């Protein structure tokens, strides 16, 4: 199995950070997400979130 094939299986996540309470929320990447664009609503304080990072992360195998 090539390196790329292994990498392709790494899911991509979007990390949103609340502008008010600074809570960080990780969710699967959606097309249209880009770093420093407006995110959604904070689950904790209902404030506005900002996309702080988009990254690929290895998910531990069960």
């Amino acid at each position, binding site marked *: 199995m*090539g*390196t*790329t094939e292994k*990498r*392709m299986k*790494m899911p*991509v996540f979007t*990390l949103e950070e609340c502008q008010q309470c600074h809570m960080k929320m990780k969710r699967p*990447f959606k*097309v249209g*997400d*880009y*770093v*420093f*664009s407006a995110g959604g609503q904070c689950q904790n304080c209902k404030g506005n979130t*900002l996309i702080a*990072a*988009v*990254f*690929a*992360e*290895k998910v531990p195998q069960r």
Partner: protein
Amino acid sequence: MLDLSVLQVLPGDNPLSNPLINVALFYVPLILFMLYGQKFQTWMILNEISRSVSRLKVMKEKSRKEAVEYITTAAGPSPDVTPRIDQFLEYFTIMPVDIDPSGVMKKLEHIVVLRDERVRAEIRKIAPSADPVKASTMENMIEAATALNYIYKIVRHFYLLGKRTTSIYVLVQLQMIMPMILQEADALIGAIDAFKQIQPIGDGIGPMIVGKSMMVAEKKAIAKDTVYSEADYKGRKLYLLKAEGPGGNVGQPGTAIQKMIEEMNVKLDMVIMIDAALKLEGEKTGEIAEGIGAAIGGIGVDRFKIEDVATKHSIPLYAIVIKQSIIDAISVMKKEIADSAEKVQMLVNRIIEEKTKEGEKVLVVGVGNTLGVGQ
């Protein structure tokens, strides 16, 4: 128990004592290997290279298909773009003659700018309604497909040359560099997925760190696809520079720094450059290193301009690099790389506090492809 009596054509207890069998078992293979050993080795190498060439062909076809699909979708209802893209995959650039190196940088810049403009003009013709982000994505995808097409053609050329001439020396050289070639091709294929979805790549860590500080400030254009902002930090004036995102641009940091110092007359006391750097085997992805000099890759035009203007005005150049492999640099940013952003920011702050005084001016440059990273 195995009955060896059938081998005993001549008298004797041990079949190996039979001279005919002895010759057949030891001398015949020895002579065969002496006579045909190299041919056998050539055949083995040819088989191995043939498999790699087939793999490269699959990658080349995949990148072409992805580029055609993306551009066709983005271009909307327009005539078939496939022949134009196919023609573009064969596009080449002739680098300037460097036998007389005087003035070669200007010639190099002229050629590179011309190439970029030509690619953009072609994309504008194919997809006139595409927004700048999609246009830069198309540009990146075509570049990756062109690179894969070129790699495949060169490897195939040497494979066929070695096969035709049965020259083991040509084939052995190709076999030796094949793992590195495949690694690069793997990286390009990984990049296409990131480009298509406008996801940040490992090389975008520099723009990501600087972009964060630029978010609340006003963004001003300074060079082609390059923006800067002004900010204050502990009494120092900061100038923050990066390529304009979220499209896949690298901007022109060299031209921008030159313009800032020589045309805008900004008296800089320090320049800090943040970039991704290729890690050595054994080094960890996302490791941070600090040094001196212009941290910028590419063909050398930007680095030349930055070094030139910094030397002329005696501006110290500080460099911070985030280590990653070639695959990491052009594939979707790994978590380890994204996690290094905070540590790098702390390092930048520490350098500014230690090496400059209040009232001084510092330029922080985020070098790299800003795909999927705004500001």
